[in-house]
Every structure is written in C-alpha cells, then in structure tokens.
C-alpha cells in the first residue's frame, strides 16, 4: 500500500499532464497552474528541511574539528547574519524586527552583504570558467589521433573566423567556419536533441506506467 498510493498518484497526474498539453481550455489551464503552485508550496517546506540539513552537517564538522572546519563557521555566520539582517528593518521612525513585511530587504547591511560580498564572489567563480576553458581546450586539442586532429583543425578554423588580419583568406575561413557550424555541427546537435526528446518521452512513460521506480528508491 505504501508503494501503490504514490504509484497511483504518479499515474493519475502523469496522464493528466499528457492530456493537458493537448487541451487548451481554461479549466485545464487552471488545474495545471494549481498543480504548479503545489511545487512552490512543497519547495518552501523542503527549503526548511534543506537549511536544517545544512546546519546539521556544518555543526557536525565544527564539533569534530574536521579538516576545513573554518568554512562551516563562515557558512553558519553568513546564514544567520543574513536571516537577522533580512528581518531587521526601519519603519515608522524606528528599527525593529519585521517578520510579515519586507523592510529587511532595504536594510543597508543586508544590501551591502549581498552587493559587495555575494555578487563579487559569484562573479569570481564564473570568471574561473575562462581559465578552465583554456585548460580544457588544451587537453581536447592535442592531436593524438586522426579524429583529435580533425577537431583541432575545425576548432582553429572556427576561432580564426573573427580575425581581421587574414586578408583574402579571411572570407574563406569565415565561410568554412559557418559551414562547419551550420552543417555538420548542427546536424549532430539535432540528432542528439531528437534522441534526448525520445528518451524523455520514454522515461516519462516508464515513470507514469510504474515501470521505472528509481525515484522512489526502488529500481
């Protein structure tokens, strides 16, 4: 029974979602939007569980003085400080805790932590991508065999297409690069996308029909 009820629910809602795609009527849309709202509601409760999980893992690391235990200290400090600043705001001439309204979002400390710590750190992480692309490209473009050599040549052509100093060769390289991107590259991409589409439908059908139960912890 513990397994059959979730499977029945998956079947009912799965079949509804398939038919919903073909039924544009307002009533069908209304049920669809209503179900989507549930995701937000479940998400809020799950977030509380998530934060509890983060606190438990971090506190355990701090308690046992595990290697790198300073990082969880910073994580916990950041978490609780942001919650504190987020609920502290200025209203009616005085500072106070506001749990039901959004004064905390304009708290200068909340904004400063977000604008001058969070955003620069995130940008730094994203900027790392440039260096990792270079190192990954170096590894990919080593001409170890015929296919890798082909990849190297194709990559060089695509990279050189914006070079303004190639004179008469510039047009030939640009045309070749466009052909590479629009013909073989696009063909391969579309083949993968068709495969993914069919795989998605296949997996969805397996889940709806109860053949695939891995998401319930049972294969």
């Amino acid at each position: 029974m513990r397994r059959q009820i979730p499977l029945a629910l998956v079947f009912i809602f799965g079949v509804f979602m398939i038919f919903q795609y073909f039924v544009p009527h307002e009533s069908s849309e209304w049920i669809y939007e209503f179900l989507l709202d549930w995701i937000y509601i479940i998400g809020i409760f799950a977030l509380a569980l998530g934060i509890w999980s983060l606190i438990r893992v971090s506190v355990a690391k701090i308690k046992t003085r595990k290697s790198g235990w300073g990082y969880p200290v910073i994580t916990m400090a950041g978490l609780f400080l942001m919650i504190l600043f987020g609920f502290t705001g200025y209203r009616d001439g005085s500072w106070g805790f506001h749990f039901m309204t959004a004064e905390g979002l304009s708290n200068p400390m909340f904004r400063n932590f977000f604008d001058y710590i969070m955003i620069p750190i995130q940008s730094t992480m994203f900027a790392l991508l440039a260096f990792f692309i270079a190192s990954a490209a170096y590894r990919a473009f080593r001409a170890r065999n015929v296919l890798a050599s082909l990849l190297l040549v194709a990559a060089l052509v695509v990279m050189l297409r914006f070079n303004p100093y190639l004179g008469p060769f510039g047009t030939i390289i640009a045309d070749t690069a466009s052909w590479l991107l629009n013909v073989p590259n696009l063909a391969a991409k579309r083949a993968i996308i068709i495969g993914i589409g069919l795989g998605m439908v296949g997996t969805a059908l397996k889940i709806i029909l109860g053949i695939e139960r891995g998401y319930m912890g049972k294969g």
Partner: protein
Amino acid sequence: MKCKSLVILLFVCGFFALAAAEEGSGPPDSTHVDSIPPPTPVSMLTARDSENDHGHSVTLMWELSTDDGAGQNSVLSYEIFRWVPFFMDTLQSIRDSLAGAEGTIAEQLRKRRDQAIAMIPGAHKSYPEQGGWRKIGTALSGQSSYEDVGVKDRGSPDYMADHTDYYYLVDAVTADPAIRAPSEIVGPVQSFGQFFNTGRIPVFVAVLVFGLLTILFVTRARRGAELYVRPLAGIEAVDDAIGRATEMGKPILYVLGLGSAADIGTIASFTILGRVAKRVAEYQTKLIVPCYDPIVMTVAQETVKAAFLDAGRPDDYYEDIVYFVTQSQFAYVAAVNGTMLRELPATNMYMGVFFAESLILAETGALAGSIQIAGTDQVAQLPFFIVACDYTLIGEELYAASAYLGREPILLGSLKAQDYAKAAVIILAALGLLAASLNWTAFINLFSVTS
C-alpha cells in the same frame, strides 16, 4: 533716367520672382493633407473565435482596402474597434477604486467588481444602444488580420469575457487621421476555449504510437524475449570506479546537477544514484551527495536509504550522506569544488541537468585526479563534459543508464521502443528531405505543429 527706371523695374520683378520661388519650395502645410481623398474601406471583414486557445480571444480577417499598396496608395494603417457597453466604465471605476483600497473596503469593492463582471454578457446584449466603439488596436498597412487577445484575469482592465457577444469594425486610416473609411460592422461573435488543440495532432499521434510501441516491447520483454542493448562505456565504468574508490579508501562524489525534481534528467539521475548507492553499500565505500535543490535532496535521501536497505546494510546509512548546500549556482559550485579538493574523491559522478558550472566542476575534478563519469541532457554542456571527464553519457544514454544498470527486461523493452522510434524519425527525415525537394506541401503539412 529711362535706364534707371528699367533697373528698378527689373529689381522689383526679380524680388517677387525669388519670393515666389521660396514660397514654392517650403514644406507642405496641412491644407495639402486635407486634399487626400477618402480611401476605400476594407472588405469581407470577418470575426471568429481564435482557434486552439483557452478563449478570451477573437480573430479578425479582412481583404485590404484597394488603396493599400495600390490605387491612391493612401492607407497607412487599420484601426480596430470593438463595441463596448457604457456599463464597462462603471466596472473600470470600481477597478480604479480597488487599486488604492485596503481591508474591508477592498473586500466590498472586489465583491462589487465580481458582480459587475458577471453582468458583462448581459450588458453586451444592449448593442447598439448604451455603449460605444473603443479602439483596441492598430494593424499596419498590408496586414489583413488582427487577433484581439483579451486577458483571462477578471481583475485586469483587459479582461475579455467568454460567451459574450462582441461587435467589431475596422477603419482604413490615411496620413490625415480625420480621413478614414470605416468597414461594415461584424458581429455578434463570441470567444470560447477549445477542448482539443488540433494544431498538435501530429504530436498526439507520435506520443500515441510511441506509447503503444513501449507497451508492446515491455510486454514482449515480460514474456522472456531476448533484447540486445549496445554496451555503454560510461555505465560499464561505474562498477570499476566504485571498486577503485573502495581499494583506495576514498569516497565517491555524486552530483545531481542544478535541475529540479521535476526535470526528467534529474529523475533519471535518481535511478542511477539508487544503483550506485546499492553498490556503495555492498562495498562499504563512502558516498557524498551535495544537493542544489532541497526537494531533490529529500528524494535523493529516500533513494539512497532504500538502496542501503536493498543491499542489506540499513545500519550503514546516515542522513548526512545526502545534504543540502545552497540554491545559488556558483556558491554551490564553490562548495562542491571545496569538497573535491579536501576529500579528494576517487570517483566523481555528474548526472542530471547542468549549466555553466559543468566545466568548473569537471575541471576541478580532473585537477583532483578523480575518475569522472558524467551524463547530461543539456546539449550545450556535453562538449565540456566530454573534454574534462573520462566517460560521458550523451543525451539519451543518461535515460538508458538505469535500464542498462538494472538489466531488467521490462526496462530494456522501453529502450527498444526508443530505438524503433529513432528509426522512424530517420525514415521520416529522409522522406521530409525528399518532400521538401519535390515540393510535396501536402506531405510536409502533415507534420506541421502550431502552438
């Protein structure tokens, strides 16, 4: 003296000639625009409910004015008018008051608004008395249709009630807005939602055929038919990777990606996680699963817990195997990279939905010297994983992995259905190529899908 008079006369004539010339080269004033003759109106105006939608929309079509792009070529645009009862003004004033109201007053106004909205169909019956024409949009010259799309939200000023009589007319407008030609009035027309989107019939047929194929092959597999599935190097490497981690005494890091629990890629990843967790429990290796989404975390916890139970080692399971990190993309990447560099896992597995973080994760894993197996359905991220990981499951292989790992006949049956569907797609693509070359529009139109 005679000569002097002649010079003065010439000077005066020249002055008037110049003045006249300057007057002629000036910009045309509005009196010139007034001389535009009235254009011919649009003809054959029709109004009908928009097809394949949720309602609240009417489509107008007409034949262009003969002065649009031809004839006097004087039509610049078409203005579309809908007949609206005066009653709508009262409704609007209620809405305006509601915008600034709070508490019980707002509640009363909301009630009055809903009562007024319920009266819209009746109010439209008062046509042509007690109402007037309101401009609802403009179509440029050369355009012979217009979709009057209303809003389904009753609180919005653009709310358009279904099953209500509407009347329309279209004005052909010239450069002088005062010179225009109104069309004949069409109506009544009612908008309503449809129960089947006929524009999606090809998709419906495809889903039906694919569903039947899946059921057919699953039934065949249940009866014991032998089904061959080509080897997937990435999945075959999973057992070796877990064995390597056990020998080295190092953990296995499993990353579910940034997808939500509603993404098929993440669901496929749960299945693979279940299989991996079972092996991990059997080999008594350490597993680390940092999560980006709290719902994904709770599902993953259940999956790993059930896998440990299946392996006969429920006591080895503890909740912190799967833990939540953050829902901020790069903060999550920083945390996972930190774990990689501190814990130095023997194997990193990236299965699910990934975005810009894919290469940062995979390159850090490569630097840490871990064996890496990745699988994603995000086409843009595949090249990064292929370059940085030892094995990559490309697109659909991610979905096939669970069937391949389990080797259960009914799961393999669904893979066979996918193979047949792919064969059908290849045949149809070849036929489509032929049809496009030979201009078989009827065949091409069979596959056209509208939203």
